[in-house]
């Protein structure tokens, strides 16, 4: 990984997303609705404003979103 890329990633982690975003609790509360909207092709970001920004800024919530999305998209259920 280049120093340039490291610097960009570090800046992104330090400065976080721009604009309003949900907190972790609200993210968890809305995650199922957001993912179901994604699965059926609805505008999930319009349905749950601030979710995308939070997922960009919170690695833990981003991982959990990815996991739920993966299961919803044809997982082992």
């Amino acid at each position, binding site marked *: 990984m280049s120093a340039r890329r490291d610097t960009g990633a*570090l800046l992104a982690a330090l400065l976080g997303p721009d604009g309003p975003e949900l907190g*972790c*609790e609200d993210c968890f509360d809305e995650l199922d609705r957001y993912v*179901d909207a994604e699965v059926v092709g609805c505008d999930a970001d319009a349905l749950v404003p601030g979710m995308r920004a939070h997922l960009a800024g919170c690695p833990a919530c981003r991982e959990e979103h990815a996991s*739920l999305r993966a299961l919803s998209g*044809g997982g082992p259920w």
Partner: protein
Amino acid sequence: MRWSETPEVVGSGAVPPQVGAATPDRESREWVRALRAPGAEGRAAMARLHEHLLRAARSEVARRGPGLPHLRGDELAEVAMEAADDALMSILRRLDDYRGDSRFTTWSCKFALLEAAVKLRRRAWRGRELPPPAEGWAHVAARGGAPGADDEAGELLAAVGAAIRDDLTAHQREVLVALAVDGVPIDVLAERRGTTRDALYTTLHDARRRLRAGLVTRGLAAPGEPS
């Protein structure tokens, strides 16, 4: 992904609920009804839900397992079972919170995934000390002028470093450096600090806002903002 291609996804129902509207689909209504039923029917529904939760937790453990080579197979199996147990308890406690604007299986699955993810992050950091805040801070300060970094990013990082030093409270600085520089998982930091993930994220969010404001004060624009 279209529904017609994936009738067996998070739930077994092929017809999605009205997303965003509090009108649960038939399968979701049936889940809630059965879980609230007294006696054998309720117990059977809980057992069925536990099976679903365990599958979700095992899937999460399997996905993350390769990144956790120090955890043995039996430990991973234990994490999955504990996650399913704890998720079931959370779901039963919060059943009244289910609004019906997503499939019940999606709603319940997120509890299992959260429990599994948190347990794995904590196990990965078990026995590890958190990095001293000063080390992470020094890393940012050093990187600002590091050879190889392009001038613009280097200038920005140097200004961010100054804002971390001058514009943040000690608490904001420690939380920001732990989460954003040292890569401490937020659940782990919450556990060590005796606080919640939400409280830490609020601190992180406030710190980031101050850093962005600090860049403006210093005549710079953060990425994603007009310069």
